[in-house]
């Protein structure tokens, strides 16, 4: 089982969601001053690819991202982590894509690779849009089997034996290669990159860039025009309005609470006191 393995990892540059703020007037995200990062689950996918390559004693890892020119940064980080090549799919026409249009561009890029990969890995979902659709839709377009939410991977000849959590069950799954997996956070811990490695990746390595025309894509297949869904509006989550606020000694608080539970018939009322 020392056959080398050819893996593609799909990564997405996302805003660091916990630090975003909302412009309440315009109902948009304030991106200024917010760091861009690799989607955390995509880091797990990348780490898994590195470990599988090591376990097989060799192979090739290609990191692919679609996004504006600055998403090149996440590919450089992937190179620093140990990916062999990075491919940036970038074109103004790709902007505004939903998962249908995004998976189409990614699928086209995979088909353009010199060698069709044995394994395609994605994070289970992204922290910004949170859909988890791109993996399965990519598998559909490339006619590959898919397994989502994987937290253990073993290679067994021409197939994989996997574990995943699904609707309250721990499943052991066998899938033939080539296949697409989406991974969850329990698959493996993510190694921190040393700054030295990052600097090398930033300075020396070539990033491959493909646009619409390189991928032979028409305007209406990609971006907003190639998308089935549109975001009509963004709004704040509906809020409840706060009610009565009570302060006082712990005993007052407990009494108030018990009274409320009695009035809701969650506790039976007590006679006397």
């Amino acid at each position, binding site marked *: 089982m020392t056959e080398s393995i050819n893996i593609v990892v799909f990564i997405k540059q996302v805003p660091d969601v916990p630090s*975003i703020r909302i412009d309440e007037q315009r*109902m948009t*995200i304030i991106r200024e001053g917010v760091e861009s990062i690799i989607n955390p689950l995509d880091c797990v996918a990348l780490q898994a690819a590195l470990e599988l390559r090591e376990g097989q004693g060799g192979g090739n890892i290609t990191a692919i991202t679609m996004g504006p020119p600055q998403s090149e940064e996440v590919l450089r980080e992937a190179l620093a982590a140990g990916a062999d090549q990075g491919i940036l799919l970038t074109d103004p026409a790709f902007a505004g894509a*939903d998962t*249908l249009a995004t*998976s189409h561009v990614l699928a086209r890029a995979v088909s353009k690779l010199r060698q069709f990969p044995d394994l395609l890995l994605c994070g289970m979902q992204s*922290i*910004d*849009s*949170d*859909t*988890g659709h*791109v993996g*399965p*839709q990519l598998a*559909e377009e490339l006619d590959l*089997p*898919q*397994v*989502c*939410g994987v937290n253990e991977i073993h290679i067994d000849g021409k197939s994989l*034996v996997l574990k995943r959590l*699904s*609707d*309250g*069950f*721990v*499943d*052991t*799954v*066998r899938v*033939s290669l080539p*296949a697409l997996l989406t991974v969850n956070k329990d698959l493996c811990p993510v190694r921190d990159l040393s700054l030295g490695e990052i600097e090398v990746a930033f300075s020396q390595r070539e990033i491959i860039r493909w646009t619409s025309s390189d991928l032979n894509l028409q305007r209406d297949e990609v971006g907003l025009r190639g998308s*089935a*869904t*549109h*975001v*009509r*509006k*963004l*709004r*704040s*989550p509906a*809020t*409840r309005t*706060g009610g*009565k*606020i*009570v302060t006082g000694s*712990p005993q007052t*608080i*407990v009494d*108030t*609470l*018990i009274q*409320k*539970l009695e009035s809701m018939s*969650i*506790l039976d009322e*007590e006679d006397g006191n």
Partner: protein
Amino acid sequence: MRKTEINKIPGRVWVFGDYREYFQNRITLQLIAKARDLAETLNTGITVVLLGEQIHQYAMEYVAHGADTVMVADHSNLKEYEVETYTTVLAKWAKEYQPEIFLAGATSFGREFFPRLAKRLSTGLSADCVDLEVDPETSLLVQTTPSFGGELLAEVITPDRRPQMATVHPGIFREFPHNSEAIGRIIYPEVDVFSEPRVKVTRSRPQSKGKVSLEDASVVIAGGMGLGSKGQFELLNELAAILEGEVGATRPAILAGWADEDRLLGQTGKSVKAKLVISIGTSGALQYTTGIQGAETVIAINRDPNAPIFRIADLGLVADGKTVLPLLLETLRRRI
């Protein structure tokens, strides 16, 4: 049933009938209830599509809970929930019968197979919706879905392609009661099921022992970091036992190891529709409060009077949970 009759199926709002763990998993019934609203606005009916082997009993259940039509594919190769097989059967039906809307629960399986189906049908899909409505002017389905970790809600539409597909967060909508007098049609269109799945589940074991699900509990006691320690957090179990409720937790409390992942409330966890939530030592981050928004009454205990949790609580008690919880338990024990 002859084809001409099948083509007259009135229900163009479709619901994927997920009957696994039927008595715990109410998502299909919740979707049928919501589909009723949507179907009325669109002047059509509800069709539940049901795939499996020997599943007639579930078809009857769906009618009793409000389905107008149940389309059943009964085949031994459909016994296991398998993404590619299910996609093939449902894509064929959707092309033939052209539903306007197609909903599935945002279960692990729903979120794995619906994207593949949407792709095969070249149509749009929104994920884990928390609200659905038909815009009366455009007749389009407005799919409200959380984005940016629940900080914002996006209203998504699928203007030109059909069906308009969505997965829906469990526990958001309320099911109709069982009505054994309800009348509906159960039909068995012909299906062709290929049987060479490339993905095989060789073993499947339950993840944890079956407690009452949080989504269905009528009282939920929720705790967060304000409780200070695992020992304090575990007192919630006693309170839950007295009030016949279930314990839920915020993400930080779960990360601290105070509760299991299946107790998680909020955006990436469960949403409750309890009669009462008592939320103790939780500051009220949005990621968490989205999970308790649906409760009828929220009582919050937090020592910081400015904590955001008080902006959504019907009754806010300003106190340290660490002090109040033992005192409350002591008082309640004396009453029993």
